[in-house]
């Protein structure tokens, strides 16, 4: 009888412990690698249903994965460089808003269907300034693999993607040059108009 009670207690404790640890894993900080892999898995899942979903469906499905894994506010800020300080609060908000939509739209447009692609994790390294870079590549059947390096920074207790370097071309650096050039040459309104135009074009195709 006592033995049986003991057994029950042990089982109960195990259950409790198990539940707690599962809870902890769920709530606790996802590592940089987990953030990237979760995002890649979401992306592949959307690609698999890509044709059925259509552009609007893909956009809806990618909205949360993109905004939860990328730190879009900070990216928008870096992308305009020193010009950020010259923008009014309203303009800054607008930029972040439009930029976020563009990011989701470009994913929805560029990853539209599935032909056996898969992401493979290569390695992970810490940078001197407390960031993490996750090296991975996209395997495309019948084509050369594309290298994807994700640069992440810690935000609160989780990691967020700040930059993606595809085959050595840094998305952030590219956008930064473009955006600062347009801001300097043509101004804020033109920039916003051009971004909106891109989002429109993405949605049409």
């Amino acid at each position, binding site marked *: 009888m006592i033995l049986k009670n003991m057994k029950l207690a042990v089982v109960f404790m195990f259950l409790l412990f198990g539940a707690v640890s599962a809870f902890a894993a769920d709530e606790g900080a996802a590592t940089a690698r987990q953030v990237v892999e979760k995002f890649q898995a979401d992306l592949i899942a959307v690609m698999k249903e890509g044709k059925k979903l259509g552009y609007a469906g893909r956009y809806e499905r990618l909205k949360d994965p993109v905004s939860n894994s990328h730190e879009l506010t900070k990216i928008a*800020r*870096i992308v305009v*460089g*020193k010009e*950020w*300080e010259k923008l009014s609060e309203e303009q800054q908000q607008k930029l972040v808003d439009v930029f976020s939509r563009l990011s989701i739209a*470009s994913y929805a*447009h*560029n*990853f*539209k*269907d599935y*032909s056996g*692609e898969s992401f493979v994790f290569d390695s992970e*390294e810490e*940078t*001197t*300034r*407390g*960031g993490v*870079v996750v*090296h991975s590549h*996209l395997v*495309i059947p019948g084509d*050369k693999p*594309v*290298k994807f*390096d994700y*640069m992440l*920074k810690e935000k609160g207790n989780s990691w967020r993607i*700040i*930059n993606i*370097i*595809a*085959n*050595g*071309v*840094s998305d*952030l*650096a*590219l956008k*930064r*040059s*473009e*955006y*600062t*050039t*347009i801001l*300097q*040459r043509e101004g804020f309104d033109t*920039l916003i108009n*051009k*971004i909106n135009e*891109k989002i429109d*074009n*993405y949605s049409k*195709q």
Partner: protein
Amino acid sequence: MMNRPHNGKRSVKMQQIFSGMLIGAAITLGGCATTEVVEHVENKIDPYENFNRKIFIFNDGVDNYVAEPISNAYKWITPQFMQTGVFNFFNNLKNVNVVINDVLQAKFAQSAEDTGRLAINTTVGVGGLFDVAKHVGLEQNEEDFDQTLAVWGVPQGSYLVLPFLGPSTARGIPGAVFDTAANPITYVGMPVQLVAMLNARASAEGALKFIDEAALDPYVFTRESFLQWRNNLATDGKSEVSTDIDALGDDPLDDDKDTAGQGVSADADASNKPGFALRLDADTKKIEQVSYSFSSVAQSFDSTAKSFEDAGAKVDELTKSKKYRR
């Protein structure tokens, strides 16, 4: 499938025809590099931006009205397997150049692989029409003289957009001249070269379409992706990522230097005082700037011609003095 921003090739590479022109340009632009226009430099790596933009627009026009329609017609009338065969054929010949550059960069293991690749595809692959080597595990490597010069420590120089040829750099020009010389296609007749051009435009289709779709400012987009792509190739993918990481750690707002941009031309805006370019645009009319860069090119033409004259004069003196000695 996803589109990839491969390279910034903006127009068909008509290297063969223009190699003569290139040599001329190389001499001229070498002159440009010495006559620096400090006060008008907006971007260290792209000091001739206004001039380059004109050429870029011209090339874009040529592409839209000539190269693209012809390329589309080629793609329409040619079955996919033939297009692949044509691509493989020219790609295989390019490997002669790849092997030479492997050796020049002291990549001996890779040169053995690439020689094997060339041999297998030329024989088993029926003169290069089939890429058999890929299935044996020999991937195509990208090597050219520009990368070799980079490995040898030659600085990249300014970004240049060449008429018909598209993006390049001061170092890319002599590189392209050597590449042309090392490509067997250079020495065969016109119809083959024409097909080579069609093939080049057709294979650049994906990249060009991506630029059209993604670029807010196609000129800057092409420049940045071209420079980053070239840098990535020259360093075999090593340096770019590491510099990227460190630079990105900085909050750009707290830092005087332009760190987050850090691409190849990152130091570009860093040299730029805040608002400098804006003020420039307000103060000077665009046309003036353009004419300025035109005149600076003309100036360097002059100085090059002058240095030739000087050299000529020196040779004359030498021969004279020799005569006197006799």
